[in-house]
């Protein structure tokens, strides 16, 4: 152990003097995360709030229903909503660009719906706000579908009555309208288990550059072989594994320190929200172990330090892409999602997403287990190859 620490201490001193470890391990991921956040994060996070108005000329129960839907959206800050009294006023506002879209509930709308007649709901759209107009249409269609469902319910119920009256129809319609939908979809994962943009980019860049940062230790073995100093280490009366172990220790220490600094700095400067500190710490330790293993196995099969660096860069970029660290992509549940699990980056990001959902250490174990599996599968062959590497 003494010799491992002696060699590791020397290597750390060399890396500190070299300074490139600071550039690749700290500066590059931090700056890239800031740039990504500025370029991609700001627009997507800016408040998008369609400006709608509604002119309720009906004042009947069906019109009130739509009005209720719109008011609830406005209360949730999803839309801005003005309630106006005339169609002219609505059209003028849309024409002037003060509104993105407006709903016009015509007089007799409720009567037409409840009597089974033709009912028309008008949308006045601003041609310069196509997305908002599309949202307005979606809201209207959604409401229309709900009304249609009520109509269908009433029609089915009337079939069971021997001689239905107008009063029966009104009663059934009112009951149907108040019935909850038979199936209600509640999205608890997508909303809760998604990293905010700043955290996503700094976490993505941190784990992406981690695979470059840790290479400073292990690739050093190949550099030493080329320089001839490995022969000197191998000639010393120390255990054969000491040099390899020292390089892996250096890789691990440098990786953990770089990640820790990035987590703290991004929390303080970028307002990143990594989640439960203990969970993050365990996740980081596991991610660094996986990164060291991947880099070490590449070094074990490379002939020169240059070859190892090139291979590691290719693998790091490929795994980063597969693991979705560059863009907050929705991988869905198909082939891409399965492929992403072949990347330790994905397991790391999944773990962070689990922490973003509010969990602690208990929720990151699956991701930690995935990362440690990567570490074991890569470190074992790497140790065998590196330990038997001839020094010249």
């Amino acid at each position, binding site marked *: 152990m003494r*010799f491992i620490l*002696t*060699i590791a201490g*020397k290597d750390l*001193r*060399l890396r500190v*003097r*070299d300074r490139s470890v600071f550039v690749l391990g700290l500066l590059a991921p931090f700056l890239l995360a800031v740039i990504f956040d500025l370029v991609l994060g700001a627009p997507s996070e800016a408040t998008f709030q369609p400006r709608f108005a509604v002119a309720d000329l009906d004042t009947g129960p069906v019109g009130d229903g739509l009005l209720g839907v719109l008011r609830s959206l406005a209360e949730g800050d999803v839309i801005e909503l003005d309630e106006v009294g005339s169609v002219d006023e609505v059209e003028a506002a849309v024409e002037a660009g003060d509104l993105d879209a407006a709903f016009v509930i015509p007089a007799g709308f409720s009567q037409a719906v409840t009597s089974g007649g033709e009912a028309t709901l008008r949308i006045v759209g601003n041609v310069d706000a196509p997305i908002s107009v599309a949202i307005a249409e979606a809201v209207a269609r959604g409401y229309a579908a709900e009304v249609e469902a009520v109509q269908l319910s009433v029609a089915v119920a009337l079939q069971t009555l021997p001689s239905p009256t107008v009063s029966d129809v009104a009663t059934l319609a009112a009951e149907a309208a108040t019935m909850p939908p038979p199936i209600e979809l509640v999205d608890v994962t997508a909303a809760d288990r998604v990293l905010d943009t700043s955290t996503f980019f700094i976490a993505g860049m941190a784990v992406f550059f981690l695979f470059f940062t840790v290479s400073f230790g292990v690739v050093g073995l190949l550099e030493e072989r080329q*320089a*001839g*100093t490995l*022969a*000197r*280490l*191998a*000639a*010393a*009366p*120390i*255990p*054969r594994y000491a040099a390899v172990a020292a390089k892996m220790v250096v890789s691990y220490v440098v990786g953990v320190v770089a990640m820790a600094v990035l987590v703290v700095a991004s929390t303080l400067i970028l307002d990143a929200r990594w989640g439960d500190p203990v969970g993050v710490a365990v996740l980081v330790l596991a991610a660094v172990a996986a990164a060291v293993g991947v880099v070490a196995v590449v070094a074990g099969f490379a002939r020169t330090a240059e070859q190892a660096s090139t291979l590691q860069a290719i693998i790091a970029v490929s795994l980063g892409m597969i693991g979705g660290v560059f863009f907050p992509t929705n991988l869905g549940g198909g082939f891409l999602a399965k492929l992403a699990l072949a990347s330790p980056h994905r397991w790391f990001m999944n773990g962070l997403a689990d922490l973003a959902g509010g969990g602690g250490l208990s929720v990151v174990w699956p991701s930690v287990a995935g990362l440690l599996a990567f570490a074991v599968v890569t470190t074992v062959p790497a140790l065998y190859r590196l330990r038997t590497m*001839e*020094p*010249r």
Partner: protein
Amino acid sequence: MVGDPIVEVTGLRKRFGDVEAVRGIDFRVEVGETYGLLGPNGAGKTTTISIVAGLLRRDAGEVKVAGMPMDIDTAAPRALIGLVPQELAVYPDLTGRENLRFFGKLYGLSGASLRRRVEEVLEVIGLRDRADDRVDEYSGGMKRRLNIGIGLLHEPKLLILDEPTVGVDPQSRNAILESVEALSASGRGVLYTTHYMEEAERLCDRVGIIDEGRLVAEGTRRELIRLVGERDRVRLQGSGNLSGAADALGRLDGVGDVVAADRSLEVVTVDAARLLPELLAVATEAGMAVTQVEVSQPDLESVFLHLTGKALRD
């Protein structure tokens, strides 16, 4: 103690793929002896000493260092060896002192003994004034000296130097050779590889001539020269009775041919250094006034040429 082997190598073999780099080499280095492995590039010198130093696994044969078997996993005999690789095996981003301290720790030195040895070695290699400068600021010769100094730190019983003068300027080369001579005089065994005949002749008590992975001959310089039948030549210039002197010299034991030329005689002998006083006395007695003496002895280059049919630098 002189006469005990510090290294014994028997039947050493090593193959790299299709190439058999070492094909059954035997030699031994005595305590206090400087043994040279002389051969051209690619002869198998570095592979041989890499196995001796425990860096490479051998395919066959045996290596013992101070009686202990040496393998790539054995630590004890390594502590007795100081290795000076052919490459500048130093860390350029560390200072000379930091390099020495680091390697000293690997050889078990610590505390006051480490500090003392570092200072002593810095003195020996003449780098005390530059000890705290980074090695990448050193000249090539200074780096070479540091490279040797690291091998001396733990006062090894055996110093292995692998072509330590390759690529250095004549002044630094001479300084390195003087250092090695001093180390030889200090009583430790030295295993020295080179493809420079002059270095082997100057430094080594015994020389093993290696070619294509085989030790083709071994012995002292004189033994090797005798082995191939090469003779010394003594050229006596002067005046007087040259023919009488030639006859008298030809009758001496140890003298082969005597060839008379214009105002000179060329005497072929087995050992010019030993016979020279007698040659001069006999020639003078026979009536020759000797004004100039020239002795030429065959060198290891000619031995190598004779044994392998090629020059050392081929």
